[in-house]
């Protein structure tokens, strides 16, 4: 008899208040990442049941107020103010930080005055206790005119009370509210004639927005025609609320004397030190890279051999024919090509989420901001740039927290220069062919070449950002204001869930495209205009010779364009297929060379490619020059359909996505 669907509850709060811990505790594994159709934004929601009531909990990005400055913050504003929004909540839970209650209550008051049935959760009680802060529950409920629950996500204290309170969330009209200054009354009255069901406070809040609000166009119009300066309204409201809240906090909490037991300052004296801070950061980067390449290599080899076993198994059990070929040469390697990235992506996100949970990431932003600023980037670009080493897709998405539109755009545009894990197999293959084995002191040539390519990617990223910053205009002044949270022992469940969700997003998002391309390539490489003739002549399926397949025809037709680079048509096919996803190069070359020879005990791909000769000059096709140019091409060219799709979504325009494609590939073509 449950006619009503899920009750939608938005979870909102300042950054670093343990909001996502509460979200994880309440919803567990019942989480999903969704997309709004037609809108550029992605959101996280989860489901839970309590006393036979079902709830959908929507996790909104951390904000300090409803005066947005970044894309993340605009998401929160629009979700709560636009009643047409698919995630417009029925109720709101505001998570507050017991240590910095005043800051949290500012947001709480704003949301409550919008008219939402609201529950206030004061979290991080353990930290408050440690500092000697005590709360008077009865007074808190009285003074804040709202239900209040005290929790501690770390020890799960108060979770039962929280669930019980969620069931009872209701709206109580407050006696105290923000009084709209007289000088704005007349404008608000005139707007009320147009939007009858908007409250006065809502109109005020809409007038106080810097950005134009598309879902209430008349208000934006009123703002510009009356020359209202939003910043003044914002300052006024914030200061008035703070002077009121100062008294409230003194009444509901008492702090006999400040106990400065925290170890945060001691840790910070090393981690933000002007010398040791950097040493430790680069040391940490080194450990992350080691883990990415050496630790990940074992599960990756396991996955690779597993899939080649599956492929061979199919070849031996299913009779020869297009179905066998589709499964063994198309589908299985395609799925394998996606799964192979999971170890690296999972390891990288384990580190990133762990560092974020501890509270270290803000310190990295602080340390790096000075050095990235001259290139038009911000300290906050560090996370996208590091993530770019695994995969540009989550990296580009993580740029969302950068407030300044120009810094964010630059970060998005240059992040794909970072050497992502998809380039690694390509580099490894080509390096092993053209760079001689041998040592220089203790360093191995091939190792140096690989490291050089990583450094090259990073240098190219900041160099092109430096160039592009002169061509991109910025509406707002860039600034950096960042909370430095106290250091915390990370919660294992938060990390596990975070890594699981990020990896799942990658497999389901990028994976689909990589898989589709692999199958498409298989089809193009297996069939050709002459296939039908083959069928008629032979009762046995032989496939088509690569040169006669559609893929071969395409490869040959682009040969004139790549000949100046010193490539042959086979490399052309490899490059062309790489525009879908770079890592496709290796299986493509494998396909090209194994389709080409009917030899059963075929030698390894590396040896085959090494032996390949130019029919005119009889010199090896893969020499040092063509090898290096191929490496450079892969380092610079924008060859990833999924990244293009994500950049389009994140910048909300094809302009920047296509600009990036042309820019990066242009550099690649010219440099080789």
């Amino acid at each position: 008899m449950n006619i009503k669907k899920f009750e939608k509850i938005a979870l909102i709060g300042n950054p670093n208040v343990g909001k996502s811990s509460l979200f994880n505790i309440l919803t567990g594994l019942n989480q999903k990442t969704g997309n709004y159709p037609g809108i550029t934004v992605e959101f996280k929601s989860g489901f839970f049941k309590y006393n036979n009531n079902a709830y959908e909990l929507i996790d909104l990005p951390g904000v300090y107020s409803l005066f947005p400055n970044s894309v993340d913050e605009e998401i929160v504003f629009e979700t709560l103010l636009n009643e047409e929004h698919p995630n417009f909540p029925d109720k709101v839970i505001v998570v507050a930080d017991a240590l910095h209650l005043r800051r949290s209550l500012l947001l709480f008051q704003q949301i409550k005055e919008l008219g939402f049935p609201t529950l206030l959760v004061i979290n991080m009680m353990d930290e408050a206790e440690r500092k000697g802060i005590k709360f008077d529950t009865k007074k808190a409920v009285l003074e804040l005119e709202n239900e209040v629950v005290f929790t501690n996500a770390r020890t799960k204290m108060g979770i039962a009370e929280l669930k019980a309170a969620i069931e009872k969330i209701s709206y109580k009209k407050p006696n105290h509210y923000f009084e709209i200054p007289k000088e704005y009354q007349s404008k608000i009255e005139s707007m009320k004639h147009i939007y009858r069901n908007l409250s006065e406070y809502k109109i005020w809040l809409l007038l106080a927005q810097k950005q134009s609000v598309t879902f209430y166009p008349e208000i934006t119009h009123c703002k510009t025609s009356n020359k209202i300066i939003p910043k003044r309204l914002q300052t006024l409201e914030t200061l008035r609320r703070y002077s009121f809240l100062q008294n409230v906090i003194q009444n509901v909490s008492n702090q006999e004397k400040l106990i400065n037991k925290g170890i945060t300052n001691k840790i910070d004296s090393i981690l933000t030190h002007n010398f040791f801070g950097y040493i430790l950061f680069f040391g940490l980067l080194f450990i992350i890279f080691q883990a990415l390449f050496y630790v990940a290599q074992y599960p990756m080899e396991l996955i690779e051999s597993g899939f080649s076993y599956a492929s061979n198994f199919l070849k031996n059990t299913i009779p020869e024919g297009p179905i066998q070929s589709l499964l063994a040469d198309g589908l299985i390697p395609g799925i394998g090509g996606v799964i192979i990235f999971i170890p690296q992506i999972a390891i990288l996100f384990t580190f990133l989420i762990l560092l974020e949970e501890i509270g270290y990431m803000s310190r990295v932003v602080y340390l790096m901001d000075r050095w990235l600023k001259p290139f038009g980037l911000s300290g906050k670009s560090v996370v996208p740039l590091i993530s770019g080493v695994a995969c540009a897709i989550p990296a580009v998405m993580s740029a969302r927290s950068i407030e300044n539109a120009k810094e964010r755009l630059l970060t998005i545009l240059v992040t794909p220069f970072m050497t992502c894990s998809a380039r690694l197999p390509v580099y490894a293959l080509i390096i092993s062919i053209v760079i001689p084995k041998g040592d220089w002191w203790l360093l191995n040539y091939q190792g140096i070449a690989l490291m050089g390519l990583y450094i090259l990617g990073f240098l190219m990223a900041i160099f092109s950002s430096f160039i592009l910053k002169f061509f991109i205009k910025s509406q707002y002044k860039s600034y950096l204001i960042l909370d430095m949270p106290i250091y915390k022992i990370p919660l294992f469940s938060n990390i596990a869930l975070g890594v699981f969700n990020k990896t799942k997003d990658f497999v389901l998002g990028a994976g689909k495209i990589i898989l589709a391309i692999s199958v498409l390539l298989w089809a193009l490489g297996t069939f050709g205009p002459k296939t039908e003739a083959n069928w008629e002549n032979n009762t046995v399926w032989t496939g088509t010779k690569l040169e006669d397949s559609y893929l071969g025809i395409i490869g040959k037709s682009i040969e004139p364009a790549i000949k100046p680079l010193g490539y042959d048509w086979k490399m052309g096919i490899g490059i062309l297929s790489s525009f879908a996803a770079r890592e496709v190069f290796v299986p493509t070359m494998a396909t090209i060379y194994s389709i080409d020879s009917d030899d059963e005990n075929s030698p390894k791909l590396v040896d085959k490619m090494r032996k390949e000769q130019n029919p005119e000059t009889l010199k090896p096709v893969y020499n040092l020059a063509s090898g290096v140019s191929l490496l450079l091409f892969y380092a610079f060219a924008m060859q990833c359909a999924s990244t293009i799709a994500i950049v389009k979504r994140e910048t909300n325009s094809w302009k920047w996505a296509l600009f990036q494609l042309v820019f990066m590939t242009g550099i690649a073509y010219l440099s080789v």
Partner: protein
Amino acid sequence: MLKIISLPKPLHLSQLKKNEKAIVIGFSNEEYPLKIIELGIIENTTICIKSRVPFNGPIIVEFGDNNAKIALRKNEADCILVKR
């Protein structure tokens, strides 16, 4: 409403020495980002610099009753006026 202070010789936050305590008295111009206020740096807040990156890099300040810590660029720190 916000005061634009023009008293003699107010100090910019960035002029303080490390660990030197001061009190916020206002903002030097209207270009201050609102986020500074939202985070709780308002008039009469005690504030001190905990660390800074050389070559005019960002600054970490500690402020308020509960020792909140935030990082700011020098430009933002210049907007905040303090007295010793």
